[in-house]
């Protein structure tokens, strides 16, 4: 299965019903992305538009590069020694591989849920509160958590 066909299908889907409903603008745009793990090339020339307010699913056989591409979007591949990404990926028309961009802020904005559950070995409250806390969003621990959403009440207990 070659990526050009993939891309063509995706563009078709993105343009028709979503554009018609006014929610078809592109959130994440990838152009000519190549990813190398050392000498081995994992992604060849991937270009795709991912629309906002929609669920986009990447389907394929195991080992075809789905996780690799996802990890490019929040720059998790930076943590792998020997991984090299070329090409352009933009979120809201901002190039995320720009050297002046703070990767920590990027990862705060672009969340990632992993295939295998990996909670921190702490209490559930700590797991949930850790993210907001390190980004300065939780001033008074429990009360500010509750103000965000009533669903948090159940989790806090």
């Amino acid at each position, binding site marked *: 299965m070659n990526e050009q066909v993939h891309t063509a299908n995706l563009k078709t889907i993105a343009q028709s019903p979503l554009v018609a409903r006014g929610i078809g603008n592109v959130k994440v745009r990838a152009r000519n992305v190549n990813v190398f793990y050392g000498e081995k090339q994992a992604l060849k020339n991937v270009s795709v538009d991912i629309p906002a307010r929609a669920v986009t699913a990447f389907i394929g056989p195991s080992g075809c590069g789905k996780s690799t591409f996802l990890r490019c979007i929040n720059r*998790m591949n930076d*943590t792998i020694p020997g991984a090299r990404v070329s090409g352009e990926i933009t979120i809201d028309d901002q190039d995320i591989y720009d050297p002046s961009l703070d990767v920590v802020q990027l990862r705060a*904005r672009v969340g990632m849920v992993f295939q295998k559950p*990996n909670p921190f070995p702490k209490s559930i409250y700590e797991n949930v509160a850790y993210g907001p806390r390190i980004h300065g969003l939780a001033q008074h621990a429990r009360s500010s958590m509750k103000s965000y959403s009533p669903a948090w009440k159940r989790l806090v207990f």
Partner: protein
Amino acid sequence: MSDVSTPSAATPAAQTGHWYSVAQQKRLKRRYAADRRLRYLGLGAIGLAIGLLGMLIVSLVYTGHLAFAQTRVELEFYVDPALVKADDIRAGNFRAIARQALFTQFPEVTSRREQTQLAKLLSPGAEWIVRDYVAAHPELIGKSFKMLVPVSDPYDQLQKGLMSRDMPESQRRLSDQAIGWFDKLKKAGLVHTTFAYELFANADSRFPELAGLAGAIAGSFLTLLVCLVLSFPFGIAAAVYLEEFAPKNRLTALIEVNINNLAAVPSIVFGLLGLAVFLGFFGLPRSAPLVGGMVLALMTLPTIIIATRATLKSVPPSIREAALGIGASKHQVILHHVLPLAMPGIMTATIIGLAQALGETAPLLLIGMNAFIPSLDSVGLLEPATALPTQIYSWADSPERGFVTRTSAAILVLLGFLVVMNAAAIYLRQKFERKWS
């Protein structure tokens, strides 16, 4: 592959592939024999190790158990107001009081020479014990009280059966007359053998019956404290840097190789370093726990660094990824997630490293941490001190017979500390270890 159902085949025994053929049975027998040999080899090795260890412990206990008991004599001490003044009790003539208490048991001993000999029955420390007791209870001036005081070393040896009564008098330390006096006290029921608390409460002494490990234990404690304070933070920081932040280049590889080699350097080399640099160049006080602790810290650092790196490597990458994924920076990942998870392993390695440092003798000897510490008043980081292993070394050198049993007892005490520390390390490891399935 053998056919399970071939009715026309030859008898099962003839088919070599069948389970019960003769050839197959021979192969099975050979394999079982090889398994057995390997198992017995392993058992034999363990048996040999346990046997040697058992021999060591048994011989130590055999020679040393007597040092945990002290022979004492119960005497009635009359605190003569003429000898002790209430305003300065400690300056009183307690030597005379002790001698008098003993002489009242032997009214037949009158000549000065015999009295001098008899006075040697009591330990020289007896008068100080009486003095301290009266100083704590000033109301006793003018009254009598009964107390147990230790006997001197030759009589202690006699009571414990370490001095043979059958030897000719000229070869013995105690004359027949002296033994006769002692036997008279025994017949009167005044001789008791009780636990030798002096072994743990007293500092070192010329007299074996008064020599204790308190000074050595205090010195070892201070030394290990300095060692811990210096090696723990630096070791962990170095390991975190090497594992998380250092670029993978030649310089880093060189540093790693050197740290691994330092772990194998003989400890006496660190003692030479301490002597030349800490004492000679920096001019720090000789035989001080501070210098001893610094030398031991140098020795323990490579152990802690290597063990910490191994523990950091064993933290699963999923934890790091989860933390990175919600936008934690690298140092937040390490401080908030990786280090807390690695802490049990690091603590185990630290305790084991400290236990090794506790038993190190050669480097401490080279920096002179072998001082004769007769009093606990002079214990301090910069004061001359001694440590448990070096104390054992001095006692082993001592010609007094009483020190023979005390050396073995001191070794047992040191082994006891080591066992406790290692048991604590194992307990911590069991309690906090996580199985990453």
